[in-house]
């Protein structure tokens, strides 16, 4: 994974596979406290304690198409390399929260990458899931809730190519204003 945005794209796939109806993506940047925090939560099927312990093992996966599961272990490695950590809280039938913390100015922290593009890709491919995206940076906040977007668009689908373009633009403009691009 070259960027944090790609990590988000990757771990949200786990939430989708877990059957989530609601997914939140929360990013908290604080340059004064030198933190870059990513938290992804869902109301999917959750995991047992035993499974939570095993997901950071690259040779653990729940899927049957291949024998390795690199997603979480890669994120853990990247977080730890950048002075942070990875934490997972999960409860069966309730959901899962994955939290990755990085030192904001750490040399080995990956760049944020195309977060707007990733959010729009997820939203457009999973219109039935409610995504709540919150991005804080040094006191500034941007929020996007797909329920609100759907209300505005009425019958226009979220996967319409032009809608994707507009949403990407909207997120980028707001992140740019916060200095989070």
């Amino acid at each position: 994974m070259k960027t944090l945005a790609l990590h988000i794209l990757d771990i949200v796939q786990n939430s989708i596979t877990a059957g989530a109806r609601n997914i939140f993506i929360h990013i908290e940047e604080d340059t004064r406290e030198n933190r870059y925090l990513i938290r992804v939560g869902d109301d999917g099927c959750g995991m047992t304690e035993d499974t939570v312990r095993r997901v950071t093992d690259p040779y653990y996966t729940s899927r049957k198409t291949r024998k390795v599961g690199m997603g979480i272990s890669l994120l853990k490695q990247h977080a730890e390399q950048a002075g942070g950590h990875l934490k997972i809280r999960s409860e069966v039938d309730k959901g899962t929260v994955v939290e990755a913390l990085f030192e904001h100015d750490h040399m080995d922290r990956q760049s944020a990458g195309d977060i707007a593009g990733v959010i729009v890709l997820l939203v457009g491919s999973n219109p039935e899931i409610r995504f709540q995206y919150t991005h804080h940076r040094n006191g500034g906040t941007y929020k996007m809730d797909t329920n609100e977007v759907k209300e505005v668009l009425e019958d226009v689908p979220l996967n319409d190519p032009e809608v994707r373009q507009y949403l990407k633009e909207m997120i980028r403009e707001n992140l740019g204003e916060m200095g989070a691009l």
Partner: protein
Amino acid sequence: MGEPIMTKIKSLADLKKKKEDLQSKIALREKSDTPEGRVIVKVAMATCGIASGSKEVMEYMVDELDKRNIDAIVTQTGCMGYCYAEPTLEVNLPGHDPVVYGYVDKKKADEIIEKYIKNQELVDGIIPVNYQTIEKDKEE
């Protein structure tokens, strides 16, 4: 066509202003096509795919199919088990069996659109898939 000054979308209120325009475009498209006639492209978007550039491939497919006026649904799928050949994508043409392409970059994606999606002409890079037998055994 459209407004002379292009203003950037910054808020939901800006998005709302575009709604009617979007609705009429969609109505127009629905008149000319039946849903059964739609092309479906599924881009494999698991760790292996993402690490190999599937996000860019998917964005390219969304943008280019739209630009070339092909009514298609581009969506994501999980790992199909061809991690060695990522990025991979599956193309479903109406009335055809699904075809999986591997090692897809923008150049390959362009070729898939022009040759396979437009003209049903097979392109190099197909991953042979036998849904009925091999995959089933693997799933056991």
